[in-house]
């Protein structure tokens, strides 16, 4: 069972982006707590402790709001435009025995056989939605790609999930495929394909209308 990270939360009295910016400046991260049909609560958490906890792979948090301690799961994380700093997080109240739906990242293991034959493993989906108990959330779903040849693909239905974990994503979801890399085109080849000037939408119509008008006026004469 994953041990929850204990965080002390402060309730945010004021909402809005300028207030959230002030909170971030003070070394805290704004967050929202919801779930279990209770009223949503705006809180803030210590940025350093949270970042450290996330770095160690914690997804379930024990959050202390006032004197009340609740178990919560990180439902969503928002990063800044550079993907460096966390700017907001969504927390959902959970029970230990409750079945929840979560997204678990997919991790590839090994080198595909196809890569030695000029292929490249392309990842089409880097996470799978699964249903499991809060205590059974896997850190990642490991897929062994050693036996993947050129032209092979792995779908969600092919993945072996740990016991107690059910697949929620569509079984036909394409996770990865190994394809031959086509030789990149040279600049000359690309230039030959490209038009000298793009076609203007509507310009052809106008010309056609003009010719129609001319022909009708000639008929009138």
């Amino acid at each position, binding site marked *: 069972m994953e041990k929850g990270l204990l965080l002390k939360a402060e309730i945010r009295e004021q909402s809005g982006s300028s207030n959230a910016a002030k909170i971030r400046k003070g070394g805290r991260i704004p967050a929202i707590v919801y779930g279990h049909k209770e009223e949503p609560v705006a809180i803030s958490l210590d940025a350093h402790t949270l970042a450290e906890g996330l770095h160690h792979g914690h997804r379930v948090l024990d959050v202390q709001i006032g004197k009340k301690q609740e178990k919560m799961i990180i439902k969503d994380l928002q990063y800044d435009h550079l*993907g460096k700093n966390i700017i907001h997080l969504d927390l959902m109240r959970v029970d230990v025995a409750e079945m929840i739906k979560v997204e678990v990242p997919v991790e590839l293991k090994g080198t595909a056989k196809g890569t030695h034959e000029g292929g490249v493993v392309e990842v089409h989906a880097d996470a799978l939605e699964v249903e499991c108990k809060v205590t059974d959330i896997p850190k990642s779903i490991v897929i062994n790609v050693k036996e993947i040849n050129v032209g092979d693909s792995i779908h969600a239905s092919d993945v072996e999930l740990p016991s107690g974990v059910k697949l929620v994503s569509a079984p036909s979801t394409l996770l990865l495929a190994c394809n031959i890399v086509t*030789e990149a085109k040279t600049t000359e080849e690309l230039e030959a394909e490209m038009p000298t000037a*793009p076609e203007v939408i509507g310009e052809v119509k106008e010309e056609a209308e003009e010719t129609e008008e001319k022909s009708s006026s000639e008929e009138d004469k």
Partner: protein
Amino acid sequence: MAMMPKRVKYRKSQRGKMKGNASRGNFVAFGDYGLQALEGSWIDAKQIEAGRVAATHFLHREGKVYLRIFPYKPVSAKPLETRMGKGKGEPAFWVARVKPGQVCFEVGGVAENIAKQALSRVANKMPIKCRFIKRIHSL
């Protein structure tokens, strides 16, 4: 001619303003590693093509290069030794509008050190500061 759209609604466009940061296309979505813009700028079709050639040449058909930006904006210019006035000039080149955070290039199917070297060559062709990033899962 380098990259440009096949069909456009209008031949010429106004310059526009570039405020704020990239709110879309700011994470690695196709490959494993990417080159992220740290500044905002217009990147013209020639520069994008130079970056693409630099990466593909370095990778020698190993791995795949993805372009995440496309020069869709026409920039017009007046011919040399022309007096001012007499209307807007003809389209001279095409640019992509890049805001801070935009992932411009991606590389997949190669080791990290190779991708880093390839993208560093691409970064040298760019008119802005860039950084090397990896694909991360949001949680």
